[in-house]
């Protein structure tokens, strides 16, 4: 059932069995899992079925750390949450992501990759992953005509992410009908939780205070409460719930809001390929048997351990010679193609003369190397000899020099590849958990009178050191494979970040998971330490951000939590 909370009379006390705060990827996954179960479920969603400006303004916040997107742009407050602008990239975390690593402070999950594996399998269809279980290059090599780089050093290898296609990414439209028709599930829209209220001993959540922008307020009681409002909002709500515990509910160890993590990315390097016709197609978004995949390059776990680094992934974007890209579209190139087709067919075009004129006007530079007084430019014999005697790579450039961009572009087009100018190298970091990177309450207030979230995003010197060392290793691997040379464009100051540093709208770590209450807000079952009926779902519980993208993992974790709750409710 779907219900507009703006129609609930003031001071109403709703009752349910399981109350979910938030209807993003985690909240919707929980609602789906609880559908048909022998207990009542209520979902409280701040927004409506579609975006509206007033509600979205509730997501506005302050930023006092590293440059970041406006908070109201990086998270969405309507049904489906941030899946409404999800890029669709799916990749599970690696086993090493869950390990405690001595060189990465605050690393380590209280669960292993194996613990989560059955839930990854269940999460794949929910996230609309096309090829279940196909997460390594070997799964694709037989079908994919695009090839990964033949790296030979053994320290890096090509990886694969699957890209969910557009409409399949939106949890809201995809699952609205299922939730609407679930008889035991009621979703309340336009319902903004103001406070989580606990019993006097702070061990049990007794109810939530809820308000709408229409100014009606009500409360909801439940046996179990699950906070699933996103990596920034989960922390904010706990900090706002500070009447009984001044530092915020569940914040007795000053952990709520700390360890905020993003996946910082920037483009600190470029590759000059040995062969300008080297293809990077494997590392661009492409389809293989209807699945969207995109390759990237990462360090092997053995290298990460040996080098004592955090994980850095490498993306590759080709930059084509702009002169040639322009020339491909030029009239002269089209004319060359048509001339050749005409010669092959042995037929004539009505505007044949015009095509010849176009080609001649572009090729006037042949004159110094052409036989004099010829009606059309004919290269001198020694010029032709030099071209014929050259290596294939040299021949490309000699042709370009001698015959001009027009013919080279036509040659490249017919040969099937456009020559590269260079390859832009991007890096994406799995950052070191940093307690100084945090979400707190800001100084401005939203339309409901609540302090807004304040973000202070910080990174660590090891993050940048890891980027630099990863690029050095990559440069060596490229050289050993004779693929090209790499230039690193990164300052040596490990506290300074490039101007193009940005995140991926991944908000993680602010209510992290640990079996030790002094190290985490929730335990391995996502239950808030010290409270018997309060759980947190989503990427805010991640202790580390992992090499993969968060959505598939947070849905997997949520499925594990759902099983735990179902067991509790038995």
């Amino acid at each position: 059932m779907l219900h507009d909370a703006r129609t609930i009379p003031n001071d109403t006390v709703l009752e349910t069995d399981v109350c979910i705060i938030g209807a993003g990827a985690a909240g919707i996954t929980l609602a789906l899992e609880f559908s048909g179960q022998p207990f009542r479920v209520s979902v409280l969603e701040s927004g409506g079925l579609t975006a509206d400006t007033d509600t979205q303004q509730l997501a506005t916040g302050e930023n006092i750390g590293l440059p970041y997107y406006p908070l109201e742009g990086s998270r969405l407050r309507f049904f489906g949450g941030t899946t409404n602008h999800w890029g669709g990239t799916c990749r599970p975390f690696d086993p090493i992501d869950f390990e405690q690593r001595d060189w990465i402070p605050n690393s380590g999950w209280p669960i292993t990759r194996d613990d989560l594996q059955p839930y990854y399998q269940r999460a794949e269809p929910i996230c609309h992953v096309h090829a279940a279980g196909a997460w390594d290059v070997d799964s694709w090599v037989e079908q994919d005509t695009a090839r990964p780089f033949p790296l030979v050093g053994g320290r890096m290898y090509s990886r694969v992410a699957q890209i969910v296609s557009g409409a399949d990414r939106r949890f809201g439209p995809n699952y609205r009908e299922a939730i609407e028709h679930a008889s035991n599930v009621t979703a309340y829209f336009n319902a903004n939780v103001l406070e989580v209220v606990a019993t006097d001993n702070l061990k049990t959540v007794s109810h939530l205070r809820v308000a709408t922008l229409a100014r009606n307020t009500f409360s909801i009681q439940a046996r179990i409460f699950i906070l699933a409002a996103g990596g920034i909002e989960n922390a904010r709500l706990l900090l706002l719930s500070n009447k009984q515990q001044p530092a915020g509910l569940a914040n007795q160890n000053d952990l709520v809001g700390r360890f905020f993590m993003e996946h910082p990315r920037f483009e600190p390097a470029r590759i000059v390929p040995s062969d300008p016709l080297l293809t990077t197609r494997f590392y661009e978004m492409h389809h293989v048997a209807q699945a969207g995949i995109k390759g990237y390059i990462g360090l092997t776990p053995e290298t990460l351990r040996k080098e004592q680094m955090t994980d850095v992934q490498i993306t590759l974007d080709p930059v084509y010679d702009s002169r040639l890209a322009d020339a491909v579209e030029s009239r002269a190139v089209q004319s060359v193609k048509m001339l050749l087709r005409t010669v092959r067919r042995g037929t004539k075009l009505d505007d044949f003369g015009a095509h010849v004129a176009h080609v001649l006007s572009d090729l006037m530079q042949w004159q110094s190397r052409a036989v004099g007084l010829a009606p059309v430019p004919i290269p001198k014999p020694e010029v032709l000899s030099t071209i014929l005697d050259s290596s294939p790579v040299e021949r490309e450039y000699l042709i370009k020099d001698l015959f001009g961009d027009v013919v080279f572009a036509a040659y490249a087009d017919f040969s099937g590849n456009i020559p590269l100018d260079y390859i832009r190298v991007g890096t994406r970091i799995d950052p070191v958990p940093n307690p100084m990177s945090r979400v707190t309450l800001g100084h401005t207030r939203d339309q409901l009178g609540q302090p807004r979230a304040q973000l202070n995003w910080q990174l660590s010197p090891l993050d940048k050191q890891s980027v630099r060392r990863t690029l050095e290793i990559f440069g060596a691997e490229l050289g050993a494979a004779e693929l090209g040379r790499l230039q690193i464009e990164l300052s040596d100051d490990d506290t300074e970040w490039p101007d193009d540093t940005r995140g991926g709208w991944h908000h993680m770590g602010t209510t992290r998971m640990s079996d030790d209450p002094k190290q985490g807000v929730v335990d391995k079952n996502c239950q808030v330490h010290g409270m018997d009926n309060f759980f947190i779902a989503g990427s805010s519980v991640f202790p580390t951000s992992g090499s993969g993208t968060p959505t598939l993992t947070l849905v997997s974790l949520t499925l594990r939590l759902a099983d735990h709750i179902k067991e509790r409710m038995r």
Partner: protein
Amino acid sequence: MSKPPTIHRRQFLLLALGLAGSVAAGSKLSGAAEGWLRHGNLSAKLTALFIHQESAQAIGRAYLQRFSQEADVRTLEDRIAQGIAGGRTLLVATGKPEISKLLTDRIRQDFATDQIVKVQGWILSITEARLCALAALA
């Protein structure tokens, strides 16, 4: 101290072509010239492999800005030769196509064993950087 010249990506591409091209193209010299190169001046032999001398010199100058202690022809020749089985003796006695192959094999091995150096951010094999340095001193 003046800043080293910026090495543009095109210069590196041409350098890479130079080494690759010299292996692929082979030697088309006259017999006398071939004989001179086979037994002549080692530095001249090594740097003759570059098609684009200016590029090699620019890279070499940048390398020597960082490693000024190697700004000596004999020192560079010896260090390049150290990485080749057969050493200086072999290099002196070997002709152009064979030297090209020895050097490109060595460069590949440098990368495989992290014998690399950063020159203005470019990750180079130590051997190729020293070859460029030789060109710069020519």
